[in-house]
């Protein structure tokens, strides 16, 4: 009936076809190893009539780790969802390399209590995996053999690693992680990011992750994108951390936390000490890891 005719719209304007499809005209082949795996070109996305992303130009090269930072509501998750084709562009487009294998870890996945689901069954969604494959993926994600456990019985850290294990099963060329350490304590998220860095070393896959915890992911990131509806600034982590657009969004206090890892910033330590008593000025402080609100008007970024 009519509904079935509208079904192909599910993938919106995202090009090219889903993994496994043949021939994408825009990106012919694997002749250029440095060619982007996925690229957003002038991408704008509107959700429920509100423009969430405007004019995003963004691409991911093979093997690089890109971290997307930005305040709440800045469109970070929407950008990842546009890259996998879950939201259709209002303008511009997303171009994926033909046959690109993507591993995706969504934000805050909840499994309904009415759904009985063992770890190994979850790993076999949507395709059946052998016991050897699932055991290898669990090991690659840094987990013991939990295959018979119920998903709802896992701890937060185990759950996130099972999501990672599932994302790794397709030997992805691109891993997309949406705040994968949400709900983990600091040692837990540090261990998670070390695992991500190790996975990149072992498999050479590219990684795009959304994170609030720039100070933790920084050492592993090749590139940082600061997002606030548009790309405010981007570049090497140290460059972004010192960029005025970034500081306008996150406050100068960030420099103090970053200095724990990188000591090459021009900032005043005295200033940091006085500010550190006020959590609002140090979003990366342990006591206030989630920045409570957008401290600066986005218009201060250069657009």
């Amino acid at each position: 009936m009519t509904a079935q005719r509208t079904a192909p719209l599910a993938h919106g304007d995202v090009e090219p076809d889903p993994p496994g499809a043949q021939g994408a005209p825009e990106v012919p082949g694997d002749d250029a190893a440095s060619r982007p795996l996925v690229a957003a070109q002038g991408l704008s996305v509107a959700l429920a009539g509100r423009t969430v992303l405007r004019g995003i130009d963004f691409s991911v090269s093979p093997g690089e780790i890109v971290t997307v930072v930005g305040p709440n509501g800045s469109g970070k998750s929407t950008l990842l969802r546009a890259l996998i084709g879950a939201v259709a562009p209002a303008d511009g487009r997303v171009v994926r390399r033909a046959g690109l294998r993507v591993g995706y870890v969504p934000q805050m996945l909840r499994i309904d209590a009415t759904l009985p689901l063992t770890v190994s069954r979850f790993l076999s969604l949507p395709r059946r995996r052998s016991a050897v494959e699932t055991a290898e993926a669990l090991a690659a994600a840094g987990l013991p053999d939990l295959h018979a456990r119920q998903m709802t019985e896992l701890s937060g850290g185990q759950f996130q690693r099972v999501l990672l294990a599932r994302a790794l099963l397709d030997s992805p060329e691109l891993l997309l992680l949406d705040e994968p350490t949400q709900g983990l304590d600091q040692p837990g998220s540090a261990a998670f990011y070390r695992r991500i860095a190790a996975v990149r070393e072992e498999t050479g896959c590219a990684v795009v992750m959304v994170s609030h915890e720039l100070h933790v992911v920084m050492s592993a990131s090749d590139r940082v994108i600061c997002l606030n509806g548009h790309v405010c600034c981007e570049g090497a982590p140290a460059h972004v951390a010192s960029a005025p657009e970034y500081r306008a969004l996150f406050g100068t206090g960030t420099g103090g936390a970053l200095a724990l890892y990188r000591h090459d910033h021009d900032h005043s330590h005295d200033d940091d000490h006085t500010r550190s008593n006020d959590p609002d000025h140090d979003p990366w402080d342990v006591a206030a890891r989630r920045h409570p609100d957008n401290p600066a008007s986005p218009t201060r970024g250069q657009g």
Partner: protein
Amino acid sequence: MLDDFLVRAALAGVGTALAAAPLGCFVVWRRMAFFGDATAHATLLGVALALALDISIFAGAAALALIVGLTVDRMAGPRLSGDTALGVLSHASLAAGLVAVSFLSGVPVDLSGYLFGDILAVSRTDLAVIWGGAAGVLTLIAWRWSALLTATVAEDLAIASGLSPERDRTILTVTLAVAIAVAIKAVGVLLIAALLVIPAAAARAVARTPEGMAALAIVIGCASALAGLQASLTFDTPAGPSMVCAAAAVFAVSRGAAALREALG
């Protein structure tokens, strides 16, 4: 053998349970119980239209269930949080169906048969429709099982795997419409949703995998149909409601056992 009305009734009950139980699992997992209710109630209007137009009751009921199902599906999101909208639709369509039936002058209508089912009066043609519908539902669900399950866990995971959750949701709505239409004869429009939800809910307490839950829901559904039929003969009670009562009893025992197991260990 099919000459015996009891044999026909038993076959109709089992066929209905076969179609309803695995679908009921998705209804439970996706929190669509109210959605099932609304589509089931809408079928009464389809029955009235079918009687007025002198077409197959099954076709009329399935068409209305499909229209309401797809409309609600497009209005709300995948998880159907539009609780109030469904409440309005569910009872409005039931009332509209009752009003429409009252307009059917000249046609003798056994209203309670459509509301509560009339499984003891199942004909050979009804049996063919029920088993044909059940076979169609089971085939479609088995074909899309893994994709539907992935989308039930998270639609974005399904999309990232190259699936189309929207298309699969439409398939689920279509199979629900067919299952509801074939279940009218057995339990009637008021109790169809119970046949979807109760066996699945009873199976949840014991199952460890989605497939285990669906298989167990089928067993519980079929056993409840047969037990309800037996009870109906023994105590001279209405067959459809007796089947639902039997399923509810299994649910109570299963939840009780689960609670006991939890308390002990």
